């Protein structure tokens, strides 16, 4: 190594960083850890909320469908009951009309 190179090596020799440099770096690294942890907790909370909304919406939708099906079924039952009642009433009316006609005929025969 020439003298010039020795001078160059001497001028570029190791320099110590300012006091507290390592502690500052470590503190900054831990700060990024906390930030990323906070970010993760927010992401998890958002994901959980989304899942809850989807599940809640699904449950509500299923209940609504069931309620509508039950209503339809009740409506069908009511209609069937009304149809049966109507036919029975018609039958009774016809019977009554027949009895009335027979009664009138008997009276006329007696007279």
């Amino acid at each position, binding site marked *: 190594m020439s003298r010039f190179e020795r001078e160059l090596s*001497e001028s*570029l*020799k190791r320099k110590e960083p300012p006091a507290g440099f390592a502690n500052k770096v470590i503190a900054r690294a831990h700060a990024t850890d906390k930030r990323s942890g906070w970010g993760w907790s927010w992401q998890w909370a958002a994901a959980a909320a989304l899942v809850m909304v989807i599940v809640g919406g699904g449950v509500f939708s299923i209940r609504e469908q069931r309620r509508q099906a039950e209503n339809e079924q009740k409506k069908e039952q009511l209609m069937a009951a009304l149809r049966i009642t109507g036919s029975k009433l018609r039958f009774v009316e016809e019977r009554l009309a027949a009895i009335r006609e027979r009664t009138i005929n008997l009276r006329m025969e007696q007279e």
Partner: protein
Amino acid sequence: MTKADFESVVREHQGMVYSIACNFFHNAALAEETAQDVFLQLYEKRLSVEVGSHCVAWLRRSTVHRCIDTLRRSSFRNEIQVDLLPEVPVDMPETDPFLQERLRRLVASLPETPRAVLVLRFGEDMDAEEIGRTLQMPVRTVWSHLQRATALMREKAARYLKEKEDEPVRTRT
């Protein structure tokens, strides 16, 4: 690399990382900022970096690349064209305290690649092969940068010393 490993790496190699950046920029504030960024980058990638020689090589490579990136982003560029300067033979006289400061300033004024080569060669005492691996360039290119940058430094240093020799004469006249 665990968090405890990271802390010991910071304490052990802070001088190396800071020195490379400081010799590169000749600016303490910029060197500190760059060195902090390098260690924070190491912390982010600590799971993929092994403790030991791999980590030292990673730190050197990252520091040099970050220095070059910072220099490219910055608005000022205090460079000297190495190719344009002739090689001048120099007889080195006794050194003075100002010569080394002059040399540091000259290193910091070189273009980025020869500057990085000189900093690693004379600051970190790395050989051409190690520098080639760190800067990802052929050994022949490293030698070429070293020779041209050293020639430039010799010429500049000689000019400075000649001016100093002439100084008393000028003051007398």
